[in-house]
């Protein structure tokens, strides 16, 4: 009973935030503080849910039934709870950052911006708690629609064009592939519930499993698998807080989370392994990893580079699932967490650089590291985590992914992962290199260096997330223990 109330509250409180934003829109301070409180309450609720639920799998009664076998229902299990914890926890930091960012840039329509942010978080939590594909789909579409105003926020023709691509790809893939996959499962199996071990194994043969997996892998466009990845770079026209939370954490992670959940609870890892239905996905994900990293290297715009880096990192997660081994899937789940902290740090620092200097191109950032040392240090920590250097959280997920590849006897995949790490080093650390070590033109600028950081509200959140990346290295064991029942993982 407590759990039911807490779960509904966690989804409703951000919705309340949507209303509060419009209610308090005449008074921006009150509005932003109230949203902050809403964010904190939401996070607290998710913590309480996690605390009460433990690592059990708890099925809640249906919220309402649309038709026979189709109901909106929530289901608490470790994978979803971890996702919900990250999304709601990072929301607090992003909100603080967002207030600083939006005010420093004196953006218009701030009320709409923060209001739809609340809506997007509510949808994200809905995805995290969904007990069946139908509920998942409803919240998935709600997330797409609620983030549209955020992407199109500036209203310029660029923003409109970017947001059209964003919406176009996400809606078309979900309607054409995802929905037909769902209806196919429903007509064949008769249920859409997420069950440990999957529900389709006695209904789908080898070939139809491959087809179904294709529908889901491409249908969940938010996972940005090649060739449906281009919405993510287009979405970078959004203000940076959106890129930080939504396009590094909530939206894209909702995508890979959905794929992971579908893989584990609809297909079943064992079914994937026995039918070898996911073999093609391994190679497509590997291709996406290398392809996106290559494009990232060629990008001079910092946010575009980070966006392609995200595309490549998302495919790590898909790859982990496609390996169809318990340890690979665990690595995938872990990577959702680790990448979230790393990438949000990078985006926030990119935004801080923009706020302080209005610079967006990497080639312009020569010597900036000495002007904004804290920001660049945070960027450095985030980069190391993405690359997967030990003492940072990212090391663990890469470790498990590599181990998964070893388990599956795929030498080539190990090589792909290593090459990609090298590419990460190149395209992330070159920013640091320019910032700290290159000098700006000729002349004696030794005395001219004046430290000019972004406003404090834009400075603290990236430091916090960078610190989080470091902490995660030491607490990864807990997350692994918490998640292992989902994957039937019994330890090395």
């Amino acid at each position, binding site marked *: 009973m407590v759990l039911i109330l807490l779960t509904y509250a966690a989804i409703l409180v951000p919705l309340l935030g949507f209303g509060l934003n419009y209610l308090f829109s005449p008074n921006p301070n009150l509005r932003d503080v109230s949203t902050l409180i809403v964010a904190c309450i939401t996070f607290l609720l998710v913590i309480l849910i996690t605390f009460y639920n433990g690592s059990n799998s708890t099925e809640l009664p249906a919220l309402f039934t649309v038709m026979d076998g189709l109901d909106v229902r929530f289901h608490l299990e470790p994978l979803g709870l971890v996702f919900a914890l990250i999304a709601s926890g990072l929301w607090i930091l992003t909100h603080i950052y967002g207030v600083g960012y939006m005010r420093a840039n004196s953006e218009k329509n701030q009320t709409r911006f923060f209001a739809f942010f609340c809506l997007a978080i509510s949808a994200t939590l809905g995805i995290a708690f969904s007990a069946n594909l139908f509920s998942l789909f409803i919240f998935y579409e709600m997330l797409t629609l609620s983030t549209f105003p955020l992407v199109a926020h500036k209203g310029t023709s660029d923003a409109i064009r970017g947001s*059209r691509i964003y919406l176009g790809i996400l*809606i078309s893939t979900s*309607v054409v592939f995802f*929905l037909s996959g769902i209806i196919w499962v429903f007509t064949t199996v008769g249920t859409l519930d997420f069950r440990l071990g999957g529900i389709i194994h006695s209904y789908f043969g080898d070939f139809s499993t491959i087809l179904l997996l294709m529908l889901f892998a491409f249908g969940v466009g938010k996972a940005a698998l090649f060739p449906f990845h281009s919405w993510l770079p287009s979405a970078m026209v959004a203000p940076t807080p959106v890129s930080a939370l939504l396009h590094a954490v909530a939206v894209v992670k909702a995508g890979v989370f959905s794929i992971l959940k579908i893989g584990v609870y609809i297909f079943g890892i064992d079914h994937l392994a026995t039918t070898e239905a996911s073999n093609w996905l391994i190679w497509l994900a590997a291709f996406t990893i290398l392809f996106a990293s290559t494009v990232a290297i060629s990008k001079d715009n910092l946010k575009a580079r980070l966006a392609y880096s995200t595309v490549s990192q998302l495919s790590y997660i898909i790859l982990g699932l496609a390996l169809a081994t318990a340890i690979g899937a665990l690595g995938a789940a872990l990577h959702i967490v680790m990448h979230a902290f790393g990438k949000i740090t990078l985006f926030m620092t990119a935004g801080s650089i923009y706020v302080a200097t209005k610079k967006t191109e990497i080639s312009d950032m020569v010597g900036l590291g000495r002007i904004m040392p804290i920001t660049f240090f945070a960027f450095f920590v985030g980069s190391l985590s993405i690359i997967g250097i030990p003492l940072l959280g990212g090391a663990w997920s890469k470790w498990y992914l590599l181990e998964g590849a070893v388990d599956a006897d795929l030498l080539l995949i190990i090589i792909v992962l290593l090459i990609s790490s090298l590419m990460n080093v190149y395209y992330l650390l070159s920013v640091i290199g320019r910032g700290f070590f290159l000098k700006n033109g000729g002349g004696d600028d030794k005395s001219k260096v004046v430290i000019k950081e972004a406003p404090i509200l834009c400075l603290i959140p990236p430091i916090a997330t960078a610190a989080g990346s470091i902490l995660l290295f030491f607490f990864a064991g807990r997350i692994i223990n918490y998640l292992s029942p989902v994957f039937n993982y019994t330890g090395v």
Partner: protein
Amino acid sequence: MANPDVTFVAKSFMEHLPVYQVLVPFVSAPLCVLFGNRQFAWYLTFLACFISFIVSILLLNQVAEFGTISYALGGWPPPIGIEYRIDFLNAFLLVLVSGMALLTSVYLKGTIDLEVERSNQTLFLTCLLLCVSGLLGVLITGDAFNLFVFLEISSLSTYVLVAQGANKDRRALTASFDYLIMGTIGATFFVIGLGFLYAATGTLNMYDIAGRIQGDLPDRTIQVAFAFILVGLGLKGALFPLHTWLPKAYSFSPTPAAIFLASTATKVAIYAIVRFLFSVFFSHPTMLETVLVNVVMPLGILAMFVAGGIAFYQRDLKRMLAFSSVSQIGYILVGVSFMSSKGLTAAIIHLFNHGITKGLLFMCAGVIFLRYKASFYKEMSGLGRIMPWTSAAFLIGGLSLIGIPGTAGFISKWILVQAALEQGSWLIALAILLSSLIAVLYVWQVTEIMYFGDSSKKGFEISVGPFSYITIWILAVATIFFGLSTSFTLEYSSEAARVLLNEFSLTD
């Protein structure tokens, strides 16, 4: 203690419900003219629509409780007299039509002064009542010729309703004339078909005809009759490519007329098609299948794409909605052409869901039109800030057109795709989903202009009464409600499909 007189009256009222359904609006119409007072006419219209809505709900209850109702008009038993016959299918649609009539009558209280000259208002309401009773009559009757008469009552009054738009835009006259020509051709075809049927069977009662044309192979007369009836009703129902009258008629007619027509008129014609297919010609399944699979289904799919594409290229809100209607009719036809219980369920539930969705959209378009004196996209830029509530309601309707989960449109699409998969028609399922992407295009175009265009044009200050906004939001809530709870719509439409196919499968 109940007074015996009261119980007697109540009982006889309940017994004669079928005839009240049609008679109440039908008798109110001349009363409006007799009194000639526009205020009085509105109250009477509202009252008539309200009563017929209540009656339709009571009828639906009776059908749910006792099964199909057969009512002999004037006490003459069926093959000789006119029979009113109500099963799940028409009981369900009676609720839609009388409900939309009720909402339209409330809506027009707020807008009629802005659209129709005062001297014409009484006559406008009279025609609306006649149109309502005509459509209800088409739904309720079991007599083929009676159906023709009611169809003409509704069509003739519709021509007048459309022509009333001339007050704003003279093109309404040509639109009405177009519709008159096409509608009359349709009616002629239909009545020729009936003539052939009468020649072949010697009866006009639909169920009697059905009994008499059973046999081995349909002879030529019956085949010809079938073709004439299908084309005739297809014209009335705007089956692609017989839809050319529809966009003009919808976009130039006064808003209340457009709302009522868009949400009911074509639906009723499609009902008549379904009725003839599955209650009259069911004994010749091969003939039905040939026509449905080779003609109706391809045309339905073509309608989804072509009319959807045309809708995308419109720059006028009302015309866009009109073409979108043609494309949505395509979905209904595809559902019918599966000839399966799921397919018919999808078609029937879409008749309902699309009825309320289009009603909602036209209501919003009407208010927008009155504010800007035009419904071109370029006029509406930034509307989201100027009319936030109406824009939000429009967005809800638009999402339902696309079929976003949580709206009524999603339910229809879901069942339709399920029906396609059940038949193993992968390609058709894919076509249905792809065509909803076209709906994304044409809906999103408007949404973008509304919410991200600059709001320099404020339009004219107009005083649309609160009634209009109330009905807009009733329908907006209904659109969401029927997307979340299908216990009403799905139960009745699947029952209706079952009843229709019951007769069908007996001969299979």
